[in-house]
């Protein structure tokens, strides 16, 4: 539609994007009570008078949640507030037990800092604060309820929630995706959260406005909600940028509002206008006292920070001779990076360890619906397998089969190789006999090879390997075949 206006009328716009990321913290207990903080339990089994907001109940701050927010802040270069406080955000909603949310308004735990993208660009942060999550409305009811009923599960009510607010430094949907990936990597390294967007432990809202390219104008800001994956954040931003471009090029104004992303239809729709915006009536929560953090405790937390993704990537590049691509993938998650280093420590083969982890191990994990955390495979098992391939004990092909069993069952490779009789056959007599059988069984291919078809040779090698169930030493098979066929 905009194309037909012609180039002369089409002003070029650039997006200005900021993200608000909510992260459920992986604490043992909830933010203000002793209930367990766990995803996926039976509805309303992880509740108590405090997180149900019963009359007379009072909140008590979970110090561990404060620590996790501060460590995130320290990892991202924020300054940690010596004095911080909690405020009440007042609004009525049925999934909110007290009809206010305990949050932080004007004195958050951390301010400043930045998330560094793989390109080196720094996306500045405004603040990181701590609040409590709400319950979950389940519309349409279950077996017990009429179709129109809404049920509420309060298991999530009171789960500690960290909100990370970026400055509008992002200039494209793809950059927003990179920001989320980089942030997720840092969070997973710190172990502060499961960071599973599909389970809601990481949630993202976006602010986006457009301005003519090259200007510092401030356009009308649209807030987008309900994006459930990194991909949907990118898609929603792409859609919204196009929509706003169309509005502006049609000579109209963008209206300030909140819009909801519809994943199935691939579009955003308006849900709340500026006039309908809540007045949250923030005020300091009188049930809680201000939080004081001295230099000593902050220094102790800083000392406990692990090596962070970018530092680790750079070290992997320098120490292991990996490609940038391999180093990025291996350091994306802390468990992968640590597994990799443990394998290398056992076998001294970084290149092979990277290939296995990013190739066959990943495929086997995906096939069995596992993650590196969940598999019982030990780094020393994979290291042993790599050594066995290097030393010719098993063939590359047999090793793939072993690898899948290691991932699935967590057994020792030597045991698997022995049990399945997968040890590589390098015995000359046995190889000669194998090659003889293959030649006898495939006269057409032998004839084809002799008329100069190179492909036929590879076919015969394949047949030999197949007949040996991958155990034959492939180099010896080639030599023997070549000798026999002349």
């Amino acid at each position: 539609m905009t194309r037909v206006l012609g180039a002369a009328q089409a002003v070029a716009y650039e997006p200005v994007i900021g993200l608000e990321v909510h992260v459920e913290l992986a604490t043992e207990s909830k933010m203000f009570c002793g209930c367990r903080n766990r995803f996926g339990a039976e509805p309303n089994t992880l509740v108590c008078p405090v997180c149900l907001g019963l009359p007379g109940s009072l909140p008590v701050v979970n110090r561990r949640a404060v620590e996790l927010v501060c460590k995130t802040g320290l990892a991202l270069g924020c300054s940690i507030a010596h004095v911080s406080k909690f405020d009440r955000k007042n609004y009525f909603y049925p999934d909110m037990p007290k009809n206010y949310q305990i949050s932080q308004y004007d004195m958050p735990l951390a301010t400043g800092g930045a998330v560094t993208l793989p390109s080196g660009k720094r996306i500045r942060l405004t603040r990181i604060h701590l609040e409590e999550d709400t319950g979950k409305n389940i519309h349409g009811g279950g077996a017990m309820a009429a179709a129109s009923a809404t049920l509420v599960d309060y298991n999530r009510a009171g789960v500690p929630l960290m909100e990370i607010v970026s400055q509008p430094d992002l200039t494209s949907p793809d950059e927003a995706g990179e920001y989320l990936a980089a942030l997720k990597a840092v969070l997973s390294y710190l172990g502060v959260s499961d960071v599973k967007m599909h389970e809601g432990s990481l949630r993202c809202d976006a602010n986006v406005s457009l301005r003519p390219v090259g200007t510092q104008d401030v356009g009308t800001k649209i807030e987008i909600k309900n994006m459930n994956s990194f991909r949907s954040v990118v898609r929603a931003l792409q859609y919204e940028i196009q929509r706003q471009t169309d509005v502006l090029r049609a000579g109209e104004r963008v209206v300030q509002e909140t819009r909801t992303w519809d994943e199935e239809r691939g579009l955003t729709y308006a849900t709340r206008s500026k006039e309908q915006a809540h007045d949250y009536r923030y005020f300091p929560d009188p049930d809680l006292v201000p939080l004081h953090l001295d230099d000593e405790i902050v220094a102790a937390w800083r000392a406990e920070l692990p090596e962070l993704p970018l530092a680790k990537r750079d070290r992997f590049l320098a120490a292991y001779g990996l490609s940038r691509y391999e180093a990025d993938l291996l350091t994306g998650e802390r468990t992968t990076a640590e597994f990799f280093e443990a394998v290398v420590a056992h076998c001294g083969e970084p290149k092979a360890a990277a290939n296995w982890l990013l190739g066959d191990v990943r495929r086997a994990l995906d096939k069995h619906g596992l993650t590196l955390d969940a598999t019982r495979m030990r780094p020393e098992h994979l290291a042993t397998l790599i050594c066995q391939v290097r030393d010719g004990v098993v063939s590359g092909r047999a090793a793939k089969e072993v690898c899948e069993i290691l991932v699935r069952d967590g057994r020792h490779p030597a045991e698997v190789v022995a049990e399945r009789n997968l040890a590589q056959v390098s015995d000359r007599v046995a190889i000669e006999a194998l090659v003889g059988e293959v030649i006898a069984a495939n006269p057409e291919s032998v004839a084809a090879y002799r008329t100069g078809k190179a492909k036929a040779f590879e076919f015969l090698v394949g047949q030999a390997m197949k007949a040996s169930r991958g155990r034959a030493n492939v180099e010896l098979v080639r030599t023997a075949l070549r000798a026999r066929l002349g």
Partner: protein
Amino acid sequence: MRCGHEIREAVIRRQVSAEEVTRAALASIEALEPTLHAYLCLLAERALKHARVLDQRIAAGDDPGPLAGVPVAVKDIFCVAGEVTTAGSKILANFRPPYSATAVERLEAAGAIIIGKTNMDEFAMGSSCENSAFGETRNPWDPSRVPGGSSGGSASTVGAGSVPIALGTDTGGSIREPASFCNIVGLKPTYGRVSRYGMIAFASSLDQAGPMTGCVRDAAITLGAIAGHDPRDATSVDEPVPDFCAGLRTDLNGIRIGIVPEFEEHIAQSDPDMAALYRRAYEDLRALGAQLVEVHLPHVRYGLATYYLIAPAECSSNLARYDGVRYGLRVETDKDVYTMFEQTRAAGFGPEVKRRIILGTYALSAGYYDAYYLRAQKVRTLIKRDFDDAFTQCDVIASPAVSCPAFALGAKTADPVAMYLMDYFTIPMSLAGVPALSVPAGYVRDLPVGLQLTGPAFAEAGVLGVAYAYEQATGHAQSRRPAVMAAAHR
């Protein structure tokens, strides 16, 4: 009915059983209830069961604690596990909490027998007990008059002599004003001294539980039982709890008592008879050896205005949870959930509660927050500083507790501001968070009134010490008997 500490002695020495004491208290309450309506529910079965267990323990040689076998009434704002707890509101008419308030647990751990839940102004908002959704309580000294509020039921039943001790809460005077009206001792401890866990919130930064008793010694014993840090209440202070009885004394030699000209001017203007009574009280303190010094509290005249911004603001948020979703009243509707919220709250809250929710919501609104709530917090700091300064010159401040004796039922219900003014002398101490006590000080027009004694934060022992000397020397509470007690018992 004797004092709590006397009952305990008799029970421990097995001169009387806890069960007999409990039955006597229940009988007295039942005889007076048609006149006073001090209770929202009696926990007779529960109390008798506890009493029998206690008697067995004593028979086995146990000492069940400083309140062993003493019947105690608790304001219906305190949760008692499994028992209906309403806070005087229709919206909680059917609410049974699954847990007990820390203060209640501690009373029971000290051997007290919880005998019933007392009537109160809805959510503790009121100064006459007339704002209860379940009918008004009456004053044992004159049943045509109010017992004061909001802890009116507790004051009335102790004043009538049915129980020696009751638990009340004080946000701006809700223990001290009814104690004054019913001729008993009422102590609002330092903010943070007693856990608020399980005490239904009105204004969180002001609410404080405290004893309402027939004598000062019982107040000291009860405070000792309920005070102390509670990990479930972040605002409860981890301050050592002294033996409050050790500070009880019979002379006031070496004690400096502050008299506040700002208060004296106010009482002289509102009621000369009251002013005369308080002048006599100060002379009695001097006669006991105290030195009277003048101390100024220049900002207390802003106390009422400050309080009526902060307390409603907090209440507007605290009471948001009563929405009909999880517990309490729900008005069913075919429309959406917000309509259900509105209709439930419209039907469940009384007019005074609604008034304060609206006041508080307004005070916190965007554009008004700085002018109202924030400004009020600043004035609160100034009032706190006034007390800090005053306590560099004196140990305890003596002042009126109220500006008049108990008034007639219905006399102030049409005029909220007249009702709010009842707390003129008690609100500043609540804002400052300092401990304050009302002790019987004699009679004006044949009705009892109390003297207010205020100390620095966590100096309850000093306040109780002065109150004890004054009580022992004057014996005001013992000099006359309340009307209903005479009718029912004599």
